[in-house]
């Protein structure tokens, strides 16, 4: 029987870390992820885990120490947000190219400037090309569930890539919700022991990791990383299947809500999906219009084929981004969804919206308005603005 609790997203991640009892946690505090290392430090002080906590002087050092620990043969974890992650930037690439299965609990927060502490995906979206697997959550339950699945994915021999478990700052990280927790022994069995085939502290096998690789080797190394990312697709689904057997909760690359007969669809990542779901229900009840929702869980690797299949026959699709990328053509999710649909020659109209930047609220009414615009778009088939805003003050 699962344990019924009420926890914040940060508490849920810390609880999962306690259950997994990783070997090393180097971390540096930054709002809104500070509580994660803080709670873990409590677990350590109270003898609940024997994780080695490293008090580092910056996030650059936190990720460096995680890389060192993982290369040595330890299971490593860290947590950060926003500018903290920006300070890890160099090491994010090293962790991925060294193929180290580190898990990072990322609490999404807007990047400076202007300085802002609220939910926005600019930190993780900026890191989308680093070679990390990225898994996003709508609720505290999903953050916890995703975190438990992180190591089995990262450490799988066909993958060996670091994983970022993302949740929205404050909205899920500090909001307390009901949650179902798995028992410690079942979690331990599910996650298993970390068994690296090669590690630096093995005196029977002297080895080098991450050496200088000039132009003769760099390209082949990157191709290898792509292979691991492609393998991750299958592994993510297998781990989700095993997770479902343990908890009954089902996960995939994305969640489809009322999509079977949907004509107008919103594609979104993260906590705002809950608000969108309420809008879908209200629209279907009030007008009977066929609204649907597709919530992305796995952004890296990008589930291009599956996504295109799910969207290609819809009349109109709005892709909602919670981070700018200043290509002046749209946001990261919008661009990739549009690209996926181009590949299957879909006739669906696609528009891209920005919402919630720097923590701006989005309401059920806002979502309803997007569905109205999608309906208009499906009729007129004229896209006035490929790249619009929700909740922006304008003259």
């Amino acid at each position, binding site marked *: 029987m699962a344990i019924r609790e009420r926890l914040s997203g940060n508490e849920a991640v810390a609880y999962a870390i306690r259950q997994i*009892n990783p*070997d*090393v946690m180097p971390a540096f505090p930054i709002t809104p992820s500070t509580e994660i290392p803080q709670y873990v430090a409590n677990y350590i002080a109270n003898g609940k885990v*024997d994780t*080695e906590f490293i008090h580092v002087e910056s996030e650059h050092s936190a990720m460096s120490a995680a890389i060192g*620990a993982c290369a*040595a*043969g*330890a299971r490593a974890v860290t947590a950060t947000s926003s500018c903290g992650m920006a300070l890890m930037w160099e090491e994010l690439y090293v962790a991925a*190219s*060294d*193929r*180290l299965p580190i898990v990072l609990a990322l609490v999404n927060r807007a990047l400076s400037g202007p300085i802002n502490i609220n939910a926005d995906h600019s930190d993780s979206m900026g890191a989308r090309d680093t070679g990390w697997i990225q898994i996003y959550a709508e609720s505290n339950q999903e953050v916890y569930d995703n975190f438990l699945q992180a190591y089995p994915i990262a450490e799988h021999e066909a993958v*060996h890539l670091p994983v970022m478990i993302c949740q929205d700052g404050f909205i899920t990280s500090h909001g307390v919700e009901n949650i179902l927790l798995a028992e410690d022994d079942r979690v331990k069995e599910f996650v298993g*022991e*970390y*068994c*690296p*085939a*090669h*590690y630096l*502290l*093995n*005196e*029977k*096998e*002297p*080895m*080098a*990791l*991450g*050496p*200088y*690789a000039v132009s*003769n*080797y760099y*390209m*082949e*190394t990157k*191709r*290898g990383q792509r*292979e*691991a990312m492609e393998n991750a697709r299958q592994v993510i689904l297998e781990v989700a299947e095993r997770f479902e057997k343990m908890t009954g909760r089902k996960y995939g690359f994305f969640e489809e809500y009322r999509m079977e007969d949907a004509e107008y669809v919103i594609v979104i990542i993260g906590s705002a999906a809950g608000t969108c779901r309420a809008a879908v229900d209200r629209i279907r009840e009030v007008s009977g219009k066929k609204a649907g929702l597709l919530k992305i869980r796995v952004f890296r690797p990008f589930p291009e084929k599956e996504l295109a299949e799910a969207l290609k026959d819809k009349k109109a699709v709005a892709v909602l981004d919670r981070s700018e990328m200043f290509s002046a053509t749209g946001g990261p999710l919008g661009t990739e969804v549009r690209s996926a649909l181009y590949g299957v020659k879909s006739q669906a109209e696609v528009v891209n919206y920005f919402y919630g930047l720097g923590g701006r609220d989005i309401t059920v009414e806002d979502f309803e308005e997007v569905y109205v615009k999608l309906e208009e778009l499906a009729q007129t088939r004229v896209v006035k603005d490929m790249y619009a805003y929700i909740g922006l003050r304008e003259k």
Partner: protein
Amino acid sequence: MKKHAKDMRTAGHKECVKGTAQERNSNQMKSKDIHEKSPWQDITEGNQIYEPATSRGFHTGEWRVSTPVYKEEKCRQCLLCVPVCPDSSIPVSEGKRREFDYDHCKGCGICAKVCPFGAIEMKEGK
């Protein structure tokens, strides 16, 4: 790490590793097996190399475009060239400098500049 450190240093991850390190090792590529013709499938993940001290095989002297030539007959063994070499490529034994370590000399020419006796000449190429 605390948990594993002892195991890792002695017998590997005892609980989980199948076969000894040597057995697993025998299937692993050594640095000689990885070269500039290796297809991407043969490049190990994380560019791992399963042997120690492979940096010895990496000759930075290959980058050289001009080369110092040691004229032993002009040399008075003042040893001024030795400490200025940024690549420690002028070996000394029994109080005397010896022939250049061309595996690591990058041909910067500082030694030739500092020599008061014209005992080091720079020539074009490797």
